[in-house]
């Protein structure tokens, strides 16, 4: 039986897991609770838990272990805040029809969009933002959250429907 000798107990590997996973985990927690300080606390705690349990958690399972632990920490934490996102200042070159009116409209649209995202149910918001901002694939999200790809797709399309409705009605 060939066993992968990679163990999370090895500091190098642990660090590597941190480098590849912590940003998504942090953003994921942020999309959930809207409080960056708290989100980073959750990331810290999850990685410490991973280290404490490094002998029990197989390398391949480390990702989903982190997300499960962080999610549980989140569930124990009650005070949610509103998710506040920033947006990129648009590069001027991309647009030819740039006039003050257009810019104002865009600005308004971004505000509406951000508000609508903040109002989404947490489960739809996290999936929608992991895909749009963190550019995660459906399959990856399904693995991280321990849900089926179908559920990821459903959350994504529900989020899109909800956003559209919300933005139209404003």
């Amino acid at each position, binding site marked *: 039986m060939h066993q992968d000798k990679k163990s999370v107990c090895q500091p190098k590997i642990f660090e590597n897991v941190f480098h590849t996973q912590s940003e998504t985990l942090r953003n994921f927690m942020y999309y959930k609770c809207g409080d960056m300080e708290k989100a980073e606390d959750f990331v810290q705690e999850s*990685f410490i838990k991973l280290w404490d349990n490094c002998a029990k958690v197989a390398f391949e399972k480390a990702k989903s272990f982190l997300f499960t632990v962080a999610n549980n920490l989140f569930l124990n934490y009650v005070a949610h805040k509103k998710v506040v996102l920033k947006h990129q200042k648009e590069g001027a070159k991309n647009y030819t029809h740039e006039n003050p009116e257009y810019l104002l409209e865009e600005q308004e649209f971004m505000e509406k969009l951000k508000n609508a995202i903040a109002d989404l149910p947490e489960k739809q918001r996290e999936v929608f933002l992991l895909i749009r901002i963190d550019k995660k694939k459906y399959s990856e999200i399904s693995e991280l959250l321990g849900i089926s790809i179908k559920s990821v797709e459903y959350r994504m399309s529900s989020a899109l429907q909800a956003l559209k409705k919300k933005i139209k009605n404003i």
Partner: protein
Amino acid sequence: MSEKYSNTFLERWMNNSLSEEELAEFKNSVEYPLYQKILDKSSELKVPVYKKEALFNKVQEKIALKKKAKTKPVFIKWMYGAAASIAILIGLFYFQNKSTIYSAGTGEQLAVVLPDNSQVLLNANSSVSFNKNKWEENRNVELRGEAYFKVEKGSKFSVETSQGTVAVLGTQFDVISDLGLFEVHCFEGRVQVENKQQQIILTEGKAFRQIEGKASENWNFSTKKPSWTTGESFFKSTPLKYVIKALESQYNVTIKSSGVDLEKRFTGIFNHKNIEIALQTVFVPMKIHATLEDEKTVLLVKQ
């Protein structure tokens, strides 16, 4: 207002699996620009800047702190006076709760005498831990891997594993707790085995096994000691993967398999002296071709 386009339709759109006609029609619809704009604009959103290094350093600091608190004994120079005595008090407190760990490495066995003269014989790649200072209050050891226990008579003695607890009064028994396998042999006296699903009592010459939480098996045996304490390992219709695990632990090799059914049950013995003979005794009857690729690797191929 009901949505014109269903969730399934949008899912297919985002997956690029709409047919050309569907896509063309969708693009001409009133709704399309808004959907597209939401997707486009949302990917321009940003989260606050991430200071990864800083966070990683915090994690490492906390881990280092924890480590110190758990295992470092306290050495302090007397010149620090009063501060030192407080530190010693704290140190003693940690010491009090520190547990003692014994482990046997690959290919090793280790005999451990517990504070009450009970004996533990650890098989390869196994460890026990217990709290010396609390031993008189409760005789409690934690086990990873496989061990043979000879317990002195006295208060309840319990062996905790990830898969269940074995509790006794004074007896001899063997416990295996390894990757979903939980197996107990009682050699003398009575043993109580308890896990999430059930609680049973084993008497002399009875064995119990449960694999990955599925239905348990019981059988009788007549040996007086576990076979591995006398230089060989005996298996009774055990899934091949656990036999392979035992071989790996015994001989410090990695066994790679391709196309071999690891759930197939094996009954038999392998000895601890010669790896080639051990491989043959296990794999020839299973119709598997085993070759030593180098000193550390064995390759299994179905015949």
